[in-house]
């Protein structure tokens, strides 16, 4: 169990985290999502005993991250955002080194990393600096796992890695999870929010939501339509200009459009717009919100409640 209780942290004037509370169950795969600068790294560094909260407390498997930091350090696996590999050491030497500083050997825990390590084992004599992003990521994960930690903390493990390797990575995490490990990973990719059992959305230092992806989508307060036209950009502006519109976001070739009211006559509005001839044919169908719609709604909520941010100044 990870208990995070009303944690605050600031660096000088900047409030990195305010009143973050979160429980993570044993064996859970939890995904923390949020834009750059939301406070994900700060929260993770506190989890792995590298930072001390200003207020509040964090317990990992019954151990306090401040009081019992030394015991905790043997039980946690941590993959920092920078991958923390030595570029001039070979693949094998990196792994060997991390094994030895945790007082173990590669052989002892090889079964745990086999599935991941076998991808890079053919290149074990190659310096880590000469690996591709995906390979580095697999090596860094192997290094973080080599001492068989109880809790695995991964700070943006998929950043700078290509889409296919990213997908592979989450498949690997699922496998590791089956070993009974508790995993908490952060990401800036919205599409990865659905990869965990639960996702938390961190925005400007506040945890806005932590639930299963399904639950998060259910809590979206407006109806959702997916609209297409031949001039989406112009249509988007037109929809946004309507006072009845809650939000309208562009998702590739479709517009995710939410009127404020459930019973708003969307067809009427669209046929009116279509009649102007500016947008070609417009089609709209009712749909379910994506996670990103929910996050966008939640983050706008917080921006609304604050008077003015840098963006609207």
């Amino acid at each position, binding site marked *: 169990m990870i208990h995070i209780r009303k944690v605050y942290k600031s660096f000088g004037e900047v409030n990195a985290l305010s009143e973050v509370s979160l429980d993570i169950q044993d064996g859970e795969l939890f995904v923390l999502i949020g834009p750059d600068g939301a406070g994900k790294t700060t929260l993770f560094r506190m989890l792995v005993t590298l930072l001390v909260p200003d207020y509040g407390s964090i317990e990992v498997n019954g151990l306090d991250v401040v009081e019992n930091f030394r015991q905790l350090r043997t039980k946690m696996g941590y993959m920092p955002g920078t991958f923390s590999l030595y570029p001039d050491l070979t693949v094998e030497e990196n792994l060997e080194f991390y094994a030895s500083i945790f007082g173990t050997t590669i052989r002892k825990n090889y079964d745990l990393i086999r599935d991941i390590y076998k991808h890079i084992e053919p290149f074990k004599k190659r310096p880590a600096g000469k690996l591709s992003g995906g390979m580095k990521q697999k090596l860094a994960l192997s290094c973080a796992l080599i001492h068989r930690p109880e809790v695995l903390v991964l700070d943006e493990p998929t950043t700078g890695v290509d889409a296919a390797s990213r997908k592979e990575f989450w498949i690997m995490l699922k496998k590791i999870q089956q070993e009974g490990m508790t995993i908490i990973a952060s990401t800036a*990719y919205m599409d990865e929010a659905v990869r965990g059992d639960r996702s938390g959305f961190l925005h400007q230092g506040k945890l806005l939501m932590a639930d299963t992806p399904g639950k998060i989508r259910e809590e979206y307060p407006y109806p959702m339509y997916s609209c297409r036209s031949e001039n989406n950009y112009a249509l988007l502006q037109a929809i946004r200009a309507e006072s009845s519109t809650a939000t309208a976001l562009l998702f*590739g070739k479709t517009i995710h459009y939410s009127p404020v009211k459930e019973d708003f006559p969307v067809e009427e509005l669209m046929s009116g717009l279509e009649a102007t001839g500016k947008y070609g044919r417009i089609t709209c169908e009712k749909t379910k919100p994506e996670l990103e719609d929910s996050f966008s709604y939640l983050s706008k909520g917080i921006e609304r409640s604050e008077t003015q941010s840098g963006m609207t100044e």
Partner: protein
Amino acid sequence: MSVDRQNSVAGSDPVVQVRNLTKRFGHFTAVNNLSFEIAKGEIFGLLGANGAGKTTLIKMLCGLSRPTAGMANVAGYNLITQPEMIKRRIGYMSQKFSLYEDLTVQENIRFFGGIYGLSKREAIDAGNIMIGRLGLEKMKNRLIGSLPLGWKQKIAFSVAILHHPGLIFLDEPTSGVDPVTRRQFWEMILETAGRGYTIIVTTHYMDEAEYCNRVAVMVEGNIAALDSPENLQRHYHVANMEDLFWKLTREINGSVTKSIQP
């Protein structure tokens, strides 16, 4: 196959015409014998993993790097014989926005305007129009370094098209940018394309591919597929671009062993 059908564009003269373009570094072939065309007003996406050859291709098309073989016509000029002319006719923005953090918004605009060959008067006018369009009046005297990332990115983009280049190259413009800001940036790209600009953009965010009119998926220096996102998904029987990318890099072009090459 759709790849062949969609390599050339019908109608008006293409803005970019690439014939057998190749770039080798020693024994390594970064870009392998590519041929395609891009029409005016198109948003053309280049997708691929790091090292697939996207940046090398863009650098060649901008006239920054000489091809090993092949030829191309960019913005009406020959890539081999007139690279300097091409540089004047295009806009370029890379993942590291090239603005000076310690200069103000306005100073940056004037400086880059000068670099792109605008007269002082033209630079000031173009800058004022841009400031007006972006709603930057209150911020024009602030240092770039003090602005939020989203603004920096928009300003960098606007500065790159200050001289009305007609053809814009964006090399991973949204790398490391949060989703909200990315979406705003893409709205800006769509708006610019709507004004007749042709845009070539590389990205490793698969969801961004869906904003493009056509995308080329690059795998190990080759174009593995080229078509509109809708056609590609239909052709390969996948639900989204991410699955398409998976299919092209892990199942079709590369077996598992191939995929794990570092």
